[in-house]
């Protein structure tokens, strides 16, 4: 049976949740999808997304409330590395010349300085220490018509 796309509820005026990501192997074209949000605040997945739209640590059965997803997204956004740029004085572009494991979860990048791309700094780091964390992903919501 042929799946109808877009779904029957996807019409002008519908409330939707849209997300996307850029694929560097596809000219950075934006890829993503759209799901409907019901007037009662539940996400209505289409056939393609059915079963895959759920929150980490929660069972996949049962409808997902948009409010719960919105809260989870806000919490995820706060833990994203990019937020660590807030309050800093400069952004440096570095070239990694070596990846050095230090301990089980700790690594060091040996770097050459390429440029200061924003702000100003008298110096750039030669070594960057960091800890590997569990995989994380981010969702860029393109427009939530609220």
């Amino acid at each position, binding site marked *: 049976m042929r799946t109808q796309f877009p779904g029957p509820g996807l019409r002008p005026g519908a409330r939707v949740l849209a997300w996307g990501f*850029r694929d*560097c192997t596809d000219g*950075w074209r934006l890829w993503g999808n759209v799901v409907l949000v019901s007037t009662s605040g539940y996400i209505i997945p289409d056939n393609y997304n059915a079963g895959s739209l759920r929150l980490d640590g929660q069972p996949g059965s049962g409808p997902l409330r948009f409010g719960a997803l919105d809260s989870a*997204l*806000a919490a995820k*956004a706060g*833990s*994203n*590395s*990019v*937020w*660590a*740029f*807030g*309050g*800093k*004085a*400069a*952004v*440096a*572009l*570095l070239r990694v010349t070596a990846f050095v494991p230090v301990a089980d979860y700790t690594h060091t*990048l040996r770097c050459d300085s390429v440029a200061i*791309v*924003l*702000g100003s*700094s*008298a*110096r*750039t*780091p*030669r*070594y*960057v*220490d*960091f*800890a590997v*964390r569990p995989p*994380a992903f*981010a969702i*860029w*919501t*393109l*427009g*939530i*018509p*609220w």
Partner: protein
Amino acid sequence: MIALPNGYAEERLTWHGCMGPLVVKNRFVRGFGVPLDFLQYALRMQEGRLSVRPFISRE
């Protein structure tokens, strides 16, 4: 791509967070979702301090 604190003058920096979003590939900054030349769309410099523009939008 990495952020430097005010007055940074060391040889070593400890980064608290995932490095994946900070990778620049083909002059595109993955974590910010912008080309390197358009970084000002993701970061704002005000009075010598950076602020991150939210990438979750509500319209």
